[in-house]
């Protein structure tokens, strides 16, 4: 081989493909890895959610009461001015609660339910993971009839009976731990995110569980008053009350009144 040929071959080696560097682009690699990680996180979420769901639905009543006792912080709000103002309503609600518990065998061994009033301008009622049901003062100011109030209470107790309040808590814990796994150190933004997910009044239930709670409430109304007219009446009231723009429903904690009314009528 003469030297000219040899030089040309060397130059070709330099100009040609680089063996030491893989040809794949970094950007493609980046997207493959990111999508892989997102896929893993989503599957992790659904996997753990499924197992917690099975556990919560099948655990004995004793365990539920224990869990709720752990979650209960020692609070004594019995003499707050808000409670005094609405003492009549609370008395009625407590009576109705006892009636509902008497009618439902499954609730007899696990009635941790307490009823409180929260001062808030939103019309809402929600149940905390420890079984405390909060009625907002705005809801009680609406001067609902007894049947309507019983419907709202029975709806929240339907969540309790189906253990939705514990499910929502477990879901937020799963989200928190996944976030903590992702961002190893506790950044300020992460804390914000975590606080957002564990915000008590923003505990979301699935549409299915909302409808189940509605069904439970309608059943209870039929048992207590012989008719579910109170439920329909409450839905009509919601219809008249809520003239907010449609995106309100997107962020609200319950399905729209149309859907709920349809369910109650067909049920």
């Amino acid at each position: 081989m003469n030297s000219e040929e040899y030089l040309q071959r060397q130059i070709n080696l330099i100009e040609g493909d680089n063996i030491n560097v893989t040809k794949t682009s970094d950007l493609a690699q980046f997207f493959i890895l990111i999508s892989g990680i997102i896929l893993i996180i989503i599957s992790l979420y659904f996997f753990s959610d499924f197992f917690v769901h099975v556990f919560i639905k099948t655990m004995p009543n004793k365990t539920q009461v224990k869990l709720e006792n752990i979650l209960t912080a020692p609070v004594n709000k019995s003499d707050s001015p808000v409670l005094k103002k609405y003492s009549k309503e609370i008395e009625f609600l407590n009576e109705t609660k006892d009636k509902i518990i008497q009618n439902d065998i499954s609730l007899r061994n696990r009635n941790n339910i307490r009823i409180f009033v929260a001062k808030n301008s939103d019309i809402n009622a929600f149940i905390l993971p420890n079984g405390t049901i909060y009625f907002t003062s705005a809801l009680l100011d609406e001067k609902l009839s007894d049947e309507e109030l019983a419907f709202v209470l029975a709806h929240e107790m339907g969540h309790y009976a189906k253990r939705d309040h514990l499910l929502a808590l477990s879901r937020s814990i799963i989200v928190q731990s996944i976030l903590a796994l992702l961002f190893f150190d506790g950044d300020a933004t992460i804390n914000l995110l975590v606080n957002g997910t564990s915000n008590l009044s923003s505990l979301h239930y699935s549409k299915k569980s909302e409808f189940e709670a509605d069904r439970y409430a309608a059943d209870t109304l039929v048992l207590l008053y012989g008719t579910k007219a109170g439920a329909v009446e409450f839905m009509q009231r919601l219809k008249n009350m809520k003239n907010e723009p449609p995106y309100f429903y997107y962020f609200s904690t319950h399905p729209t009144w149309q859907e709920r009314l349809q369910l109650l009528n067909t049920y």
Partner: protein
Amino acid sequence: MIDIILLIIILSVIYMIGSIIEKNHFKKLKKKEVEYIKLPAVGFGCKNWSSNKQIKDVGIVCGEAAIGCDYFKMFVSNLKSFFGGRLTSVESVLDRARREAIVRMKEKAKKIGANVIINVKIESTMLNECEQKNMLPQCLVIAYGTAIKYE
């Protein structure tokens, strides 16, 4: 959320800048390698090298190059090392550092007027140990050899 958006912006900007720098570097390296192609650098000759030609001058020549890994490459390689496998994004950094070191060594030998470099060794070290988070790996390659000038 702001953090994630900021991260995406930083990553995309650094990807663009980094890829331009890398492209230009490879272009320069190819040009210089072709320029010094007639100066052979060989790895043998530590003990039993002999030549028929008269030797006029002998000297050590070395070239060093420190190349930093950009943030995007580090991000991708960190993700990749989560699963394991070839860290393809940092391969080019090591390759650039090695070739740059050899080119600089040859450049120095050319200044002396050497005909051949024997007993070439290539060594690499990390400038920082990357113990702390958010520290970019920097690759340092040293190439050294004995430059020989014939009579």
